[in-house]
């Protein structure tokens, strides 16, 4: 009797810090997913859909959200089964899981967001081939608990979606002079009022709309990120140098 109560109390004390650590890893996970190891800007994965669909903000947002959902679901499921999955078959099982999730999302989008589905077309099923998803399943979800894996999927997906949205708005703004064009594809008829037209007789900037515009835009974003990173590391260095001097 006493033994079991001791065990219970022990397990309780063991669980409590585990839960705390689960949430305490959240800032690290989000920093990694959104910035330090951003799928699009650092890992440079999933560039095919990234460059192809970012013609407008809404297209980018649509594909970003679909990819994020896939990442959250695949990471959670992989994490749930990680303990009784044989290492020899983990890759086929990951592929199976991801393919099932993406097909499900494709069907749901076809049923509920038909117009957006028509616009994104082939790039929804192509989420399967986005290496970042299987990379997260293999590198993170197969080694961490469900909560952290889901958070990792969310943050990685959010980081990818943000880049898609920023690149999409850059290209839409330069290419067509609008923002949120075709928003009704995603938000229904109410979305039409979201469209912002900056200039009625904007001649359009073809380069931004064409694929080279996507490459240049992504290059500028990566450069911007690297500049910010360097500034920050220089600051940290100066602080580190300054501190011993004070001491």
């Amino acid at each position, binding site marked *: 009797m006493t033994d079991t109560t001791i065990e219970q109390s022990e397990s309780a004390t063991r669980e409590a810090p585990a839960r705390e650590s689960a949430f305490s890893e959240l800032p690290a996970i989000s920093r990694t997913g959104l910035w330090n190891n951003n799928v699009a800007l650092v890992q440079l994965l999933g560039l095919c859909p990234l460059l192809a669909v970012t013609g407008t903000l809404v297209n980018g947002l649509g594909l970003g959200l679909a990819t994020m959902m896939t990442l959250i679901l695949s990471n959670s499921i992989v994490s749930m089964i990680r303990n009784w999955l*044989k290492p020899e*078959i983990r890759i086929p*099982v990951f592929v199976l*899981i991801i393919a*099932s999730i993406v097909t499900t999302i494709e*069907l749901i989008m*076809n*049923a509920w967001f038909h117009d957006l589905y*028509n616009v994104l077309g082939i790039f929804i099923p192509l989420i399967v081939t986005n290496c970042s998803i299987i990379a997260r399943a293999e590198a993170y979800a197969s080694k961490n608990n469900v909560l952290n894996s889901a958070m990792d999927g969310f943050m990685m997906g959010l980081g990818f979606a943000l880049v898609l949205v920023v690149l999409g708005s850059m290209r839409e703004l330069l290419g067509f002079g609008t923002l949120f064009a075709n928003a009704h594809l995603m938000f229904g008829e109410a979305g039409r009022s979201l469209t912002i037209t900056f200039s009625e007789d904007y001649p359009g900037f*073809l380069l931004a709309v064409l694929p080279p515009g996507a490459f240049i835009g992504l290059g500028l974003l990566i450069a911007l990120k690297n500049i910010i990173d360097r500034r920050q590391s220089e600051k940290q260095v100066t602080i580190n140098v300054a501190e011993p001097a004070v001491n």
Partner: protein
Amino acid sequence: MSEPDLQAPEQKDTEQADTQQPVPSQSRARTIMITAALLTIFAIAGAALVGITFVNTEDDIKHNERLSLLKQLNTIIPPERYNNDLIDDIITIDADRSYLGTDEPTQAYRARRDGKDVAVVFPASAPNGYNGPIDLLVGIYVDGSIAGVRVVKHRETPGLGDAVSTTHSDWILGFDGRSLADPDQNGWKVKRDGGVFDQFTGATITPRAVVKAVHNALVYFENNRQTLFASAKTERSAPELPEPEMSEPKMSEPGQSKTDRPNTDQPEPDQPDNGKQ
């Protein structure tokens, strides 16, 4: 001498298999079985997930596809001009396909009002677009004038050739009301070639291809007018079948009495088609 030598290693093998190997080989087989079972379970679970979603979304998807098709057709033929079930009143086009620029049989949608022919909408393709074929939907009223032309799919240059699509310019609406007689044969060209249709700045190839495809579609309509409205024609010749167009065209394959006529026409025009291509 040689026989016992040969037998000896066999016996040793069997002995080893009986005494030492059973444990690892059995456990290996067991591992393989478990692994295979796991893989099967995941495959079944994945298939089940997709299957369940498919069954639950199937109706919505079909409904959406019908709606978007109907929406597209309604931009060509105003919905108040017909009152039949446009999407289900279809006929398969197989003859004379070279005029439509398609390799495969396509379907024409017939619009009727109270059983009278109003218009027909059928796909046509301009094979010589700037970046590949431009797929069109052409609607033609029963009097031979164009109800409307819309681009369904194209790969023309954004900002230049994509003005054929209604989202970018109204150019394609310029076909409305035109017919084979208006303008005449020589006028069915872009202005640069001496015709009546505008080209866009910076893009002549795209409008040239579309004008030619629309003209071909009109020629096709003129040549196949009776086939295109087939069920209406048989309705007139056989008055004992009062309203066949609602039920018969749905069954595109078994609808023998109506499809027999175009089917018998098939082989002859098909061969010259191939020769032209």
